């Protein structure tokens, strides 16, 4: 599906296990999201009871009749083939990260690299959770990491349990898409 084809847009929520993808989609979707959660057998990576192994799917119908489909990917790298399937044709991606997790900067690189290949001209927003908890890495470190790799992507401190914060992520993504269509920009 190409972005905008037949009045449908796809936005992918991705990131490691426990970052809040399922929660974020549930905060926005007008319908009960489709979930493919099973018991988490990888308690070493994240201590939560259930985890997504297939996809999450939600939907927003806009006043103009356009439909925004919200897809959540599995977080574990062993399901990476799903990232490519879900990323294909996406208008943009929202990467959710947990600022307290060890190796979170490596996760940033991993997910940016995986989805930069799919979304047009870097339409990616980073949502950073748990920034107020002890040991959390500041959002500046993520922005500087991206800058050092030649990316200028927004890194926003959010709490995806708050609908307002998820809306901020989606609106930022929409503004990036809008800015990229400004005539004269390199494609």
């Amino acid at each position, binding site marked *: 599906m190409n972005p905008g084809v037949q009045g449908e847009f796809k936005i992918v929520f991705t990131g490691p296990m426990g970052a809040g993808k399922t929660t974020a989609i549930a905060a926005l979707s007008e319908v009960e999201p489709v979930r493919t959660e099973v018991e988490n057998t990888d308690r070493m990576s994240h201590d939560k009871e259930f985890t997504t192994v297939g996809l999450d799917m939600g939907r927003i119908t806009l006043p103009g009749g356009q439909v925004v489909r919200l897809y959540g990917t599995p977080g574990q790298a062993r399901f990476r083939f799903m990232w490519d399937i879900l990323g294909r044709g996406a208008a943009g991606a929202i990467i959710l990260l947990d600022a307290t997790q060890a190796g979170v900067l490596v996760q940033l690189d991993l997910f940016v690299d995986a989805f930069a290949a799919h979304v047009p001209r870097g339409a990616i927003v980073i949502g950073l959770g748990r920034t107020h908890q002890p040991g959390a890495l500041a959002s500046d*470190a993520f922005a*500087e990491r991206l800058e*050092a790799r030649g990316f200028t992507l927004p890194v926003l401190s959010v709490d995806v349990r708050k609908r307002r914060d998820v809306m901020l992520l989606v*609106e930022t993504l929409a503004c990036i898409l*809008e800015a990229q269509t400004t005539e004269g920009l390199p494609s």
Partner: protein
Amino acid sequence: MDMNDVNAHEREAIQMQTLGIHDIGLPVDASRALHSMLQVLNGRLRTPWQTCHLDRADVLIAHAASDPAVLASWSRGGKPLVLVIDERAPRPTSPFVLRQPIRVMQLMTMLESVAEQLASRPSAVQPRRARNPDSTWMPLESLRQLMARHGDAGPLVATTSDGCGVWIDRGTAYAAVSTLQRLRLGELRVGAFATGPQPVPASAVAFSTFDLAWFVALKGPTELAPWLERGTAYRLRRWPDFGRLGGTSALIELAALASAHAWTPARLAEASCQPIEDVHRFLNAASMAGLVVNAPVTAQPRAAAAATSMWSRFVGDLRRHLGRVA
């Protein structure tokens, strides 16, 4: 030829000079890597660089844990200092920071920014726009000077428009929780910083000086800051963290445009359909927070297409759905 043209020519001439760089306090591997990168990058940068003795250097690259006396002495000379910090260290107030391990792209962007700052320093021949020391720029100027002192200043205090205090002590800002919330909402102005009798209250919360700079500039004068130029194009090197700073739809739109392309202030106002005064405040704030870089003025994107694009309709409909209509 107006002042902007003169400044542009002057800047171009300075950019052609070879600039000297000296490093102190770096681990041996990092220092060697830095020198190798400089060799690789020379010829790819707008300004040539070479390593030299400290006395002749235009720029000092120093590990944040270097001898404070050397850093303070360098800072007094007014030349740029690039601080090197460890990967997980909190960002210091210095406008130029490199995180270890240093990466080529990070160094390249940094050197271009430093060269730009050196080229835009006031010259004896061509005075820049006049600055009145008693002007409305005093709060921003005082904060800017503090930030250039790399965290050795404090404690200093400024008064907000509702009579509360905001403190800076060794590179960190402090305020009452309620004051910080009102700063975030753009409800308060902040006066100039000065030495005050009051110490930082124990109840005050710490926050980044860069965030304070953003808040102060966003509520500051509606003119373009004296250190920015109307004829220069600016782009964002990093986005503001609107999750932490608070962000209106208008600010997000400006940031999205400025991260996609370099704009002169006037063209950014045209492209975003926002008042030039708001664009000035956005650029002033982004500049104070160290988020913008100068870029050569090239063909400026035309804004007309944006208004009718598929994404514009999508964004408009999405905003209405989300209840975030600007």
